[in-house]
């Protein structure tokens, strides 16, 4: 995998998180009724940042949860690497809430479909909205994001790698391409 371009740097990631937080508040007319749920692993980190940002703007805590979708994957038997089951940590009732689901990259839409199934087993939210740092296209399911950090047109030969300080030591998003170094 060859690194082709840097799509977002640390400052750009920060600006995306700030803008998405404002958009969430604008769309939901404030913090009331909303909760932020991140998809493990990097979606959870982003969700934490968005929740912090929203709390900073509104001076009010917002509920934050983490969703592990391993058990809901439709490719459990075919993926080559054995998945490790982690905990879902949502310590509040999502019924009647406006759930903002957060992930790092939106691609085929299959991860989001799993997350929707997982959320449906936890309760009946009023709405589920989707926030992603990068939308790279190539959807295989009728799913779209409500809040997007950056739209990046890609080819299927490329991959988008999101690195976040919490798990990777720094903030950046890079575009990689299969091929010889």
């Amino acid at each position: 995998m060859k690194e082709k371009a840097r799509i977002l740097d640390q400052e750009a990631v920060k600006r995306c998180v700030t803008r998405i937080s404002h958009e969430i508040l604008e769309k939901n007319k404030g913090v009331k009724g909303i909760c932020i749920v991140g998809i493990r692993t990097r979606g959870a980190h982003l969700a934490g940042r968005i929740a912090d940002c929203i709390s900073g703007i509104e001076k009010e805590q917002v509920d934050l949860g983490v969703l592990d979708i391993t058990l809901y994957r439709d490719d459990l038997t075919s993926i080559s690497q054995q998945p490790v089951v982690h905990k879902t940590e949502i310590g509040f009732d999502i019924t009647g809430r406006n759930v903002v689901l957060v992930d790092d990259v939106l691609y085929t839409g299959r991860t989001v479909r799993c997350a929707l199934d997982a959320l449906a087993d936890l309760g009946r939210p009023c709405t589920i909205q989707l926030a992603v740092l990068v939308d790279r296209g190539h959807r295989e399911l009728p799913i779209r994001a409500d809040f997007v950090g950056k739209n990046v047109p890609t080819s299927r030969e490329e991959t988008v790698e999101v690195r976040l300080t919490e798990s990777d030591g720094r903030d950046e998003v890079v575009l990689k391409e299969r091929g010889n170094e």
Partner: protein
Amino acid sequence: MIWTRKDLLGLEELNREEIELILGTADSFKEVSSREIKKVPALRGKTVVNLFYEPSTRTRVSFEIAAKRLSADVINIAAETSSVRKGETLLDTGRNIQALKADVVVLRHGFSGAAVMLARKLDISVVNAGDGWHEHPTQALLDIFTLKEKLGRIEGLRVCIVGDIAHSRVARSNIWGLTRLGAKVTVCAPKILIPPGIEQMGVDVGCDIEEALSKADAVNVLRMQFERDARDAFPRGIDYFRKFGITRERLKKTGRDIIVMHPGPLNRGIEIASDVADGGSSVILEQVTNGIAVRMAVLFLVSQAHDKRISAD
């Protein structure tokens, strides 16, 4: 760490990482049982057969609930009401279950090694739910899981196992699992119930319950299995209780809080006093709850590994 075994037959063959993987996976599964909708689709379309040649309620129900919370379909076969009565061998029964395209057999059998034999002959996953005096791995895993949850670690813990060590598969599995994770195990029982050479498993032996308790962080009280042994040589009932029963006085004497575990079913007033079983240091019902998470983890891991093997062929 990747789980590669299609079966779970005992803890003796597992390394530390494998045991920790099961415990970690169980920890993630525990949350599912606290939901309003207690179900995840991880084993949707899989069939789990509980094949029980010995009476059991708690283990069978626990496996059944675990499989159902993973969305698997469950069939229960009790030997007394099956073709076993007509003389069918274990292996033939197993082959038939495989021919019915089940994915996992959970086997409880009176002969040590029954699960190992069946696992070797079948392609589908076999989970040992207790074989003779050999092993009962999921019971030990749920005991260890509960201990870890209560005390935060296993490494360096001092665990006393008291009761019929010689005929207990629960004791054997616990000894393998606990020692592999770095706990210090003492077994305590009347001499006649301690098998010769048990020290080779890496445990200390004691015949004085008060002394054993004084050095323990937790005590696992085994059920006196009178139904298994017709000999008259060992102390029964009230005699046993007087010498080895876990009572409030004995626990108090240690001056510390000792966690009390029991695999069930309880013989109140024989191996454990009623007020201890129901008291604040008892985690007996938590063990039952944790058993579901542990069995979910085991069913999930073995069927994952089995599917991987098929797709690799």
